[in-house]
């Protein structure tokens, strides 16, 4: 292969992409979410899912859970970039610890009558989804689980009259007695 004339044209190395779940503890101050998101968009990182909420109000700490994809080098770089932001307390790669639990909540609205309705209820029971709203022609199911399980449930509901989905995105926590 010909050597490129400038560093501009050196090709990127294509290591396979990995998906990682990062937990970021941040000071709950105005603009902090914009800073984190701006880092991702500015540097061209991916966001598959992002959830944020204040978790320790007395310490003004919010917890951001981000699911991202990238080569191992990019993932490391993302963690370093997050860690050097002033309002960021800690960054933990939940995927690397190998001991994390990930959950997501979805609310799924279906419309239909007759056979479809019965089938939907049967599947919901198998997935341990709860009915949280019902009319004679509709249901809203609440389901929690990991992303894969929710995707699977939604795929099954699609032919049964799926109308609308609302998902929280992934929240993660480590197993065992230790906190982060």
């Amino acid at each position, binding site marked *: 292969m010909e050597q490129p004339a400038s560093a*501009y*044209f050196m*090709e*990127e190395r294509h290591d396979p992409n990995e998906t990682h779940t990062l937990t970021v503890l941040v000071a709950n101050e105005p603009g902090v979410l914009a800073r984190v998101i*701006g880092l991702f*968009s*500015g*540097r*061209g990182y991916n966001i598959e899912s992002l959830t944020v909420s204040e978790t320790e109000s007395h310490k003004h700490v919010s917890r951001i859970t981000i699911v991202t994809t990238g080569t191992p080098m990019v993932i490391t*770089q993302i963690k370093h970039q997050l860690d050097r932001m002033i309002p960021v307390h800690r960054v933990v790669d939940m995927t690397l610890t190998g001991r994390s639990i990930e959950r997501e909540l979805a609310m799924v609205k279906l419309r239909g009558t007759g056979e479809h309705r019965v089938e939907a209820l049967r599947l919901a029971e198998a997935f341990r989804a709860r009915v949280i709203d019902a009319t004679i022609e509709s249901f809203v199911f609440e389901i929690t689980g990991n992303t894969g399980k929710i995707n699977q449930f939604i795929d099954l509901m699609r032919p049964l009259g799926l109308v609308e989905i609302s998902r929280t995105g992934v929240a993660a926590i480590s197993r065992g007695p230790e906190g982060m």
Partner: protein
Amino acid sequence: MSDSKPHDPNQMTGAAMIVRALADHGVKHIFGYPGGAVLPIYDEIYQQSEVEHILVRHEQGAGHAAEGYARSTGLPGVVLVTSGPGATNMVTPLADALMDSIPLVCITGQVPTHLIGNDAFQECDTVGITRPCTKHNWLVRDVNDLAKVLHEAFYVATTGRPGPVVVDVPKDVQFATGTYHPPRKSDVHISYSPRVKGDANAIRKAVSLLAGAKKPIIYSGGGVINSGLAASKLLRELVEVTGFPITSTLMGLGAYPASGPNWLGMLGMHGTYEANMAMHDCDVMLCVGARFDDRITGRTDAFSPNSKKIHIDIDPSSINKNIRVDIPIIGDCGNVLGDILQVFKSEAKKPDTKDWWKTIATWRARNSLAYKTNNDVILPQYAIQRLFEATRGHDTYITTEVGQHQMWAAQFFGFEEPHRWMTSGGLGTMGYGLPAALGVQVAHPDSLVIDIGGDASVQMTMQEMSAAVQHELPIKIFILNNQYMGMVRQWQQLLHGNRLSHSYSEALPDFVKLAEAYGGVGFQCSKPGDLDGALQEMIKVKKPVLFDCRVAALENCFPMIPSGKAHNEMLLPLEANDEATAAAFAGGKALV
């Protein structure tokens, strides 16, 4: 790749697509500055003749020049700059254009996609940095998206409330080959559809308010200019049909002629007494394409307390932002004015406003723009008046910098037509006027283009004199030189105990020599008696000019509504003695 394949004319590099898209959108001139990340585009520009490139000396100059070009033609201004510093130097003009609703399409180079986020040479997060100062922006990562994004960029910049947009194009996308397509409807986000036509019910209600008014006023703004020449015509017709008095914001000057019988002059902080008093005392206010900015309203809780307000604006977020209005009409000014006129003519007749005009005449008699004449030194107000007289009969365009001279220009230069007045209103950007004049002159090569400047402002973008000389653009830079940052000094005198902290320029260049150094022509004038002759000489020169007009150093700009005061608490020029001034500014610090 076989040679037998027929050549598809729509297959081209990203760089070629950019130049092709400019041509497809009718762009004749672009303003720019080359650099590493836009070299492929510059290479394409070199090989064609449809689009003419104007080389500036600093990217900020390109931005303001494009603003001047846009505002004087009604067409979008186009800018091409490189990545990193090229893009960051464009931030001021983008913010300026956003504030003043000026359509700009700015194309920035970016480092190749695989280097984005790596802190590469001349990399910056252009889309992140410009997000708050553009109407919308795009980073194009795939050459096959480029045509669509470019067409959408032009559409977004020029429709609805106009504004600046940025298209950030990485260098590898400029080199890559893809498929171009000409502009088509589906290029635009379906989520973007600005409303043009006003609600018929609201228009009917507005007309019945107008028809019943005893003390009406029309308050027009830059939206009328942006809407196009037809809107200004309709506004004039509405004034004629209703007999209402009309005032305008800084941005709206020229929509109604300054020589028109119903003209009250500009309103706001440095507006006329009659305009502000009429705003305060009116019973029906028709706001057309203006946004109740704080320089207009003064104290909002005392703003026009007894009036019903109608607000025409194309931007729903302008409605009820600063001032609560009774009848909002969302739509294009020209379109809505046309509907109002039609309904008014068929259903209403001219209200009797004789008493109201009598009251206005008593306010007018206060002569709020008066100043003490002087035979020894040139007063800045006098200089503008003489400049206005000297330009009568010429096809004149005026730009300004920001400060006292800008307000005097607005007060004393009479604008008869829209698109003739280019000034930085919302952002208040010192250094706007010189490059803006350059842009205006590019669009109107045979017209008389004058930047009314101050000695401080004009030095912020002075380097563009070199661009003017290169492109043979005979712009006239008329500097009201008082050796101060006059407006800063005025506020320090009024609000900070006359402690003139860093508002005096201890050293100024010799503007005549400076003009000559650039290859232009310099003038200097310090005697009122010599001014007219010197102005005639200046107008005759077919080269860029710096005119150093030495004016009274300590003159201040009146009338003035002290910041945070109401419209009926104006400080008038001949009454602005120390006591009145102290009283007007008593009761706390002005916030802005």
